[in-house]
């Protein structure tokens, strides 16, 4: 199970690096979304995978009676997903507004803030 997730993380990171190397900002953003999901999987797998043992405490007991799944990484992943979702919504809007205003998605052509030297 860990091996499968590890391979999946590797594939996701490789694909996202490929996308992020593109000059097109939208592709870069898609790469970012992929790699953030890879990060979430890393956290999930780091908490150790224990299938079919939900972190539930039976009625009347104070602690789980047998080995259960680690609930903390799931909480962390949930937090990271929510935060990531907000940030990507913002980033996507930003990219769209930039495209409307500058008329390009090519990062090489975005030189307004840092104009090329005129050779003065």
């Amino acid at each position: 199970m860990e091996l499968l997730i590890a391979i999946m993380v590797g594939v996701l990171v490789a694909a996202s690096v490929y996308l992020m190397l593109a000059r097109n900002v939208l592709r870069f953003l898609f790469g970012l979304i992929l790699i953030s999901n890879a990060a979430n999987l890393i956290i999930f797998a780091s908490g150790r995978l224990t299938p079919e043992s939900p972190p539930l405490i039976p009625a009347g007991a104070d602690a789980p009676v047998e080995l259960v799944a680690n609930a903390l990484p799931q909480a962390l992943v949930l937090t990271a997903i929510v935060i990531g979702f907000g940030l990507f919504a913002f980033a996507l809007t930003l990219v769209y507004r930039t495209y409307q205003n500058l008329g390009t998605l090519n990062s090489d052509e975005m030189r307004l803030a840092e104009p090329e030297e005129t050779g003065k």
Partner: protein
Amino acid sequence: MSWVLASPIIIPFATAVLAFLFRAGPEGRWISVLGSAALLAASAILMVEVLDQGVIAAQMGEWAAPFGITLVADLLSAVMVVITGITGLAVSVYALADIEDRKEKLGYHALFQVLLAGVCGAFLTGDIFNLYVWFEVMLIASFGLLILGGQKIQLDGGIKYVTLNLVSTILFLSGVGLLYGMTGTLNMADLHGAVREVENQGLLTVIAVMFMIAFGVKAAVFPLFFWLPASYHTPAISVSAIFAGLLTKVGVYALIRTFTLIFTTDVPYTHTILLWVAGFTMVTGVLGAAAMNDMRRILSFHIVSQIGYMILGLALYTPLAIVGAVFYLVHHIIVKANLFLVAGVAQRIAGSTDLDRIGGLYRYAPFLGLLFLIPAFSLAGFPPLSGFWAKYVLVKASLDAESYIIAAAALVVGLLTIYSMTKIWGYAFWKPHPAGVEPRLSRLSPRDRAALLTPIASLAVLTCIIGFFPEPFVQFAERSAAQLLDPTDYIVAVLGEAAVPAAPTGLAQLEATE
């Protein structure tokens, strides 16, 4: 006790809500000023407590450490929160005259306060995942502030700022996940002990370098700083000033915290990387500044160059060097924010920050010239201003550590800083205005003049105080450095006496049963 720690986070959030509700009228900006003043007061109380009682910690929601989220304040955290309060107040007063109604209606003041809350949260948290959350709070507020108003140049700078910072955030998050996987804890005090029990120390060093890169992007060190000069000169002056003062310094703080508390298992390796990074950051930053021809862009590159000095203090990792890093951090925030504020006034009265298009400021506004010279000379390290003592301690520390090359680099960079400052002085202040404008301060309305110049003058006075009476500040930095290098107090405050020989927690228990 818990209120003392929580109030620097709660006050800005509450202010943000109020300022957002009243964003349409003039009340919003005064709420922002009052909130910042309250934050400064709260931070002062926190500082008194910490000076009095040593490290203080509080468990949020009464969940005992290391399972709950802990807020901790040692001397470094406390002084960073105080400085946040000071710059926050100065910039919110400046914003009274700087931010136009249109941006206020879009929620400038609310975003500004959320930014302060995020910065204070990052300084006070004792939990590494919580640190990630505060970074995000800070980041989303800074995104909003950066592109508020939506000019083309802001969008252009914003794209670079947003994308590169998101990459760093994801690296940070992966690092947190892997660190948790190896140690089974997220509490920073608990991690101090837990990382020493990890069998695979090599993998731990890999994670340390991941954190170094993630925080390095935030702190804008070589070779990860490119987002900073691309974006810091684009938003409103108030935004530039608070970014320049605080944001990168949160990255530096995070580096100092993690590389004195957690990742000290392989100091020769990690801190040597930091030393090289520090040297290149200083040199590339100052050379970049020399090539620029716009006040704000010159100052942006100088942020990068100055970050190098702070990293240098951390990298040498001797008591004196850490003293230098802490002192530099405090001095630099005040000076840098102030220089951006001065550039803003120059823009208002002379029409631009482009050095070719302005001039005559010394002739027509000599008082502004004086206000520029104090932070500029301090930045370059002229005695007896605050920057001199900061640089002196760091150069002394590097000579003591027999790192002669880095000491030489620090001195040469100081010299080149003077070159840049002289350039601004020569072009903006001495040469006549190319369009024949007379940039007098009286061109501003009396209300604007008071709102713009009071914060600048106050920060300049503060720089002079640190410069003329460095003794108590250096002593403070010494105490703070002692706490950083021997984190026993920190760990006892968070986990209690029993925890000093760290007990296995979380995952370690789980694995023991397997």
